[in-house]
């Protein structure tokens, strides 16, 4: 049951998975395109000076990743509440927590790994050196699950609000601040230790999110 649900949820984000016919549309591609676009625009805005770019580029990658994580939020939970999808799963004995855990995994798979891959072209555009790229990649690997967890909690909490999509973007930014501070902070000090904090924050959020989001969609019903 979990397997089928995960496959279907992935189909929401990746049109080619789960046999969907144009299912999620540009769902998964959009955050990645957005992410690379920010990395591309930044040198135009601040000038092509290699030293400046290399010093500030890592932080830009982080901001771009954070903003890219906001994009899929509007369709993360609301849609399936309106479809009655969660009701039907509930009747088949699946708990809201399990539904939300599956949804979080699908959400992360749809933007985490693609973003990590897209960090390579972004690093080239921003002229990041090897050690910095190394820290960005590990940081994104540690931080994106946390971003997915925050996104899921917010999407579930704002599901009943009419302007939920706009609000969820605003709510994610302050909540994602600790991840950003430690993730980008590691770049400034060129030190992997603070990425441990990022991973710890992510771990806590990932453990918490299915319960918080599950309670939220139960309340909406």
């Amino acid at each position, binding site marked *: *049951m979990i397997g*089928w*649900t995960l496959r*279907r949820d992935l*189909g*929401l984000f990746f049109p080619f998975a*789960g*046999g*969907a*016919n*144009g*299912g*999620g*549309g540009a769902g998964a591609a959009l955050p990645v395109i957005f992410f690379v676009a920010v990395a591309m625009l930044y040198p135009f805005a601040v000038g092509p000076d290699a030293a400046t770019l290399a010093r500030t580029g890592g932080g830009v990658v982080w901001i771009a990743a954070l903003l890219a994580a906001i994009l899929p939020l509007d369709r993360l939970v609301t849609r399936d509440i*309106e*479809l*009655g*999808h969660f*009701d*039907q799963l*509930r*009747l*088949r004995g699946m708990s809201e927590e399990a539904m939300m855990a599956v949804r979080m995994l699908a959400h992360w798979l749809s933007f985490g790994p693609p973003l990590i891959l897209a960090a390579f072209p972004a690093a080239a555009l921003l002229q990041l050196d090897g050690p910095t790229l190394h820290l960005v990649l590990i940081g994104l690997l540690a931080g994106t699950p946390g971003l997915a967890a925050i996104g899921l909690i917010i999407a579930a909490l704002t599901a009943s609000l009419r302007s939920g999509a706009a609000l969820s973007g605003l709510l994610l930014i302050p909540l994602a601040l600790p991840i950003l501070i430690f993730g980008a902070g590691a770049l400034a000090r060129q030190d992997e230790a603070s990425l441990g904090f990022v991973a710890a924050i992510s771990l806590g959020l990932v453990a918490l999110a299915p319960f918080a989001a599950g309670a939220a969609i139960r309340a909406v*019903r």
Partner: protein
Amino acid sequence: MQGSESPRIFAHDLACRRGDRVLFRRLSLDLGPGTACHVTGANGSGKTTLIRTLAGLTPPLTGTARCEGAVGLFDERIGLDPERTLGTALDFWFALDGASDPSAVLERLCLSTLVDVPVRYLSTGQRKRAGLARLLGQNAPVWLLDEPLSGLDTASQALVSKLIAEHLDNQGTALIASHQALDVPGLETLAIEDFAVREEALP
């Protein structure tokens, strides 16, 4: 039929609310294998709330409500992804429910020619039939049907009555909320307005 226990829809001294308004109270019913109940009532009288409470999706205000056996819920939200084709959207539920013969279900509801059409392009009646296909594939002994006839043409309405009758013959049980008359032998009726609460604030 799934589950070894005999199916049952049971409510005792049930009161439900929507928002801060009490819809009905002191409602009791007990449906066993082979019996079904047709719930009638005006818009907003609480038919949908009753069904969702019996399904365990919303908690009752007071009293008990439960279903024994796997529950098949059919309401206006058919649970099929609008962007997907009817075939792939239904296949998800068929796979989840372990439906024994999906193609026979599609044939029965005259949906075989529509499997390549995205769900969002289906007409109201076709969407209803698609929801019924999901329900049949589930093969649940307990049916909770919310307005199964609205938006259906005469032939499809007759088909729904026939499906319910067959479901009862197979020792299933059903509770149906509908404004239209159902042509099912031995159908009990329950007028939800008999239990209505007028102008009463919450305790």
